[in-house]
């Protein structure tokens, strides 16, 4: 049996004094892909920020263990170095910081944590260009300040590139398909599928079923009123697409 990678127990969290996550429980094992679906405004993104330790997202009770370690006591960067990667709904633009510079800092921070030597510049550039090409990112785009002036699709390709080279053991996709055309969504889905193996796990947070046609989940959970109200397999996503969330939101 595969070991748990993420164990969330009785988690309660608030943003700006308002409770968003309430008695939330979920265990994700190595090799599994879970999808969390829920209506807009239910707090799905809050969950992803809580898992990444963003300031302003306050855990009031409960526990989260990541590969057996207490996740909540780690800083954002420690979580990333331990292997958590969040594909963001709105990747942030950072003027003045070329994409390659950004990627190099990130890769070397993670490598240092793993006790690996820093990559030398040539080695690194070769690897980034190669992986970039597979994702439709050319050298010109790599020289531009990260995400600045990128289209929605370009931003998601860059997220996919970051994920590909950082090789996280646990990826969270937060509304990763919002605003994407089919091609860009396929690129993101392909990079997620390429990373998928029996040691890694994924959590896909989404409003629509669309992305799940490309990244097939083992479990689908419905998130409403701060916690999971129903769990099923991929067929639950199809059912939701047809019937909507109304009956689950009303439940409590």
């Amino acid at each position, binding site marked *: 049996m595969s070991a748990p990678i993420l164990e969330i127990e009785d988690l309660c969290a608030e943003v700006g004094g308002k409770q968003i996550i309430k008695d939330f429980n979920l265990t994700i094992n190595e090799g599994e892909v879970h999808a969390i679906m829920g209506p807009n405004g239910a707090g799905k993104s809050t969950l992803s920020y809580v898992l*990444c330790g963003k300031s302003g997202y306050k855990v009031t009770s409960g526990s989260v263990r990541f590969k057996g370690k207490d996740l909540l006591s780690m800083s*954002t*960067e420690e979580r990333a170095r331990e292997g958590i*990667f969040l594909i963001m709904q709105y990747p*942030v633009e950072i003027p*003045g*910081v070329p994409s390659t510079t950004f990627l190099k800092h*990130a890769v070397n*921070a*993670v490598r240092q944590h793993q006790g690996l030597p820093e990559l030398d510049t040539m080695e690194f550039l070769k690897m980034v260009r190669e992986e970039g090409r597979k994702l439709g990112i050319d050298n010109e785009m790599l020289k531009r300040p990260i995400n600045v002036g990128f289209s929605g699709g370009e931003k998601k390709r860059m997220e996919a590139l970051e994920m590909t080279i950082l090789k996280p053991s646990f990826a969270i996709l937060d509304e990763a398909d919002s605003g994407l055309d089919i091609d860009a969504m396929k690129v993101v889905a392909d990079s997620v599928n390429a990373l998928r193996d029996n040691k890694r796990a994924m959590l896909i947070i989404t409003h629509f079923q669309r992305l799940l046609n490309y990244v097939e989940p083992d479990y689908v959970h419905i998130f409403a009123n701060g916690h999971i109200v129903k769990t099923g397999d991929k067929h639950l996503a199809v059912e939701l697409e047809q019937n909507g969330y109304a009956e689950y939101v009303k439940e409590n």
Partner: protein
Amino acid sequence: MPLLSDKTYLYTELAQEKGVVLPTPKTEAWKYTRLRDLLNTEYQLCPSTDKTGSLPPFEADVIHIGNGWVVGELPRIEGVSLSFITETMEKTQHPFALMNAAYLTQGLKIEISGKLKRPLLLNYFVVPEDKNYFYHFRNQIICHENSSAEIIEQFTYEGAVKSCYFANIVNEIRIEANAKLHHYKYQNEAFKANHIALHKVAISQSGEYESFCLQKGANIARNETEIALNGEGAEAVVNAAYMMNGWATLDTTTNIYHYVPHTKSSQLIKGVIGGTAHGVFQGRIHIAPNAIQTTGTQLHKAILLSDEAEIDVKPELEIFADDVKCSHGAASGELDKEQLFYMRSRGIGEEEAKQILINAYLTDTITQISDERVREWFKILITG
């Protein structure tokens, strides 16, 4: 009053002796920069030294200035005539420029008549030996018609970082028709030292003055640039960056006078300050009544890294002509939290992430530097 090298003098008393009125907290042009530490220190006359400061990583013709005295012989440089000055070129009301003239340590006349191939580096260096030395140095830089030159001033020190020494620098710069001067400065004085510099620049027809100043050191430091655009087609770029984490006051003051039509000036000044540091920017653009079709732009931005850090900004536009393009802007704030989170969520440590953002923030103040080696040098100084 002949000064004796083994005696100490209060700067205020030296001023009184020559009838110079030093600024008080009520003096408008100096109201944000508290001079108490500078004026109430007892100084000793700076003796000459043979020691020289380290050199930046690019080829240059170098004049070493140790404790305010030129070290060794003046170099021979093609297209440049170098000599010691005996009198000042222009009259001024600037109190520290008056003091500089009254108690001049040494001064250089730098006449440029050709197109220089290498930068000329004025490598100022202080060996304070625990004493509070003061020195007054002055350059008269004359760029003759059609000449072009790059002059770099570097201010560093050795040892005895607790010294409250005082460097008072004046540059009188004349740029004749079609001449070009690129003027860059790196100020990294000891953390209790004081540094006041005035660059007084007059530009003739189609002359160009392009400058950048990076201030990273000293307790009280002011870099003041006064530019007179006297000929049509004259252009000036005055860019600057300042970084400080201690308690210092770093002041950037500009006064740009457009006296004739078709002149152009631009200013980009950016600062990053933490600790209890204090940033000051005073920028004046003056456009004379007949100076139509002039362009003057000014932008000051600052990032405050701590609650105790403070900035004072005073932009002044004095526009007496119609048909001009003039703008000024000022912004200050903190590092962007979303950008920091994004970087940290990729494994980059908080301090490293902040440093990356600060570097990126300041780097656009040096993009106009056309000499790539010098630009790279400043990039490293900003990063380091």
